[in-house]
């Protein structure tokens, strides 16, 4: 995910100085992201150079300069929002390739495939647990309440993991039947 669009997005809702950008990002992600302030300033400079953000008002105390999205910046951000992800489904995890390669062998070793799937299943179960624990850890905070962006993100994570587990169960069922 691009930091460029993330920062631009924050600056479409009003002027912020670099430190506030860092703070807002960290708040959205419940402090799980330690954003380097240097990267923020660097990105603000690039966005300004590209005409997507501009300085707002005069430098405040301690020389802090606020930035806000330009018309061009808003247009670019809106365009990005309005364009859904259209690339083909991406199955990024290695388990798919592992199963594929094992199944393609001249004499596929079903027991081995089942073992590989079993190990992955354990990892997915633990992942569900970790997501639930993470979610519980932030639930008391303002950014982690039910319906908050962060809660929705954890929900997405859990549903994706559930789908992976269902796929593994389907594989196991089909392989055991043969």
């Amino acid at each position, binding site marked *: *995910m*691009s*930091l460029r669009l*993330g920062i631009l997005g924050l600056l479409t809702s009003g002027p912020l100085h670099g430190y506030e950008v860092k703070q807002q990002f960290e708040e959205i*992600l*419940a402090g*799980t*992201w*330690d*954003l*380097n302030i240097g*990267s923020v300033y660097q990105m603000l400079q690039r966005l300004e150079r590209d005409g997507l953000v501009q300085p707002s008002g005069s430098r405040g105390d301690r020389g802090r300069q606020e930035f806000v999205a330009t018309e061009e910046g808003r247009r670019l951000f809106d365009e990005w929002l309005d364009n859904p992800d259209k690339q083909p489904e991406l199955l990024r995890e290695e388990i798919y390739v592992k199963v594929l390669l094992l199944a393609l062998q001249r004499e596929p070793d079903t027991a081995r495939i089942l073992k590989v799937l*079993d190990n992955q*299943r*354990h990892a997915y*179960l*633990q*992942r*569900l*647990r*970790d*997501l*639930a*624990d*993470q979610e519980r*850890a*932030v639930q008391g905070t303002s950014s982690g309440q*039910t319906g908050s962006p*962060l809660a929705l*993100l*954890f929900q*997405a*994570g*859990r*549903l994706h*993991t*559930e789908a992976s*587990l*269902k796929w593994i*169960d389907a594989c*196991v*069922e089909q392989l*055991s039947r043969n």
Partner: protein
Amino acid sequence: MNAIVVMQNVSRLFAENSGVAALDGISLDIERGEFAAVVGPSGSGKSTLLNLIAGLDRPTSGRVEVCGIDVGGASESALAKHRRKGVGFVFQFFNLIESLTVLENVMVPAELAGVRRGKAKARALEQLDELGAAELARRYPETLSGGQRQRVALARALINAPDLVLADEPTGALDTRSGKNVMDLLAGMNEAGQTVVLVTHDIKLAASYGRRILTLRDGRLADDTRLSVQRTGTAADLIGWTAEGR
């Protein structure tokens, strides 16, 4: 080791001499204080397993010992006592008695266990209060929401301070929020030392609350996984924003 449930090579046929096994050679122990979740597709034997632990059913072969009682060999009266005092049940559809008030519903297991009415009433009120449902005491089940009904059912399950709480799809008929409240209550009981066995088809629910996931397939124990609390994988990791921030 202090096992509350011991199963050794347990099988249960669907019907006597049917030859078709609902459970097929299950061996497992559940320790006191565990939160175990039993998962598997429908027909995998989850409910049969729970019924054996509850003493509602007996094994065709093998040994089932729950709270020190041999479920296969115990007399009917010993099993009935086990069901009344040893275990607390929570069901998907609550199973409250519609003609009784909430308070009376919660009192039922205590009175069945021989507790005098006055004492049963005091205990029921206390239990409802602990679950934040004291204000529901005089109402009838039909006037309650699903979440409130399940809270009452939990109070009923706990009134005899059972060693074991058995929950069969306890959130199946609830909306997300009420379901979460009920699961949080079960988790709270477990933290207080209660052994909980949850049966569910919802793997998310199982892994979010259970410390141990027992997977059944075709009547067999296909997997037994213990989960740890390791707090890895943050919100930022989920959307792949970590690397760029550093």
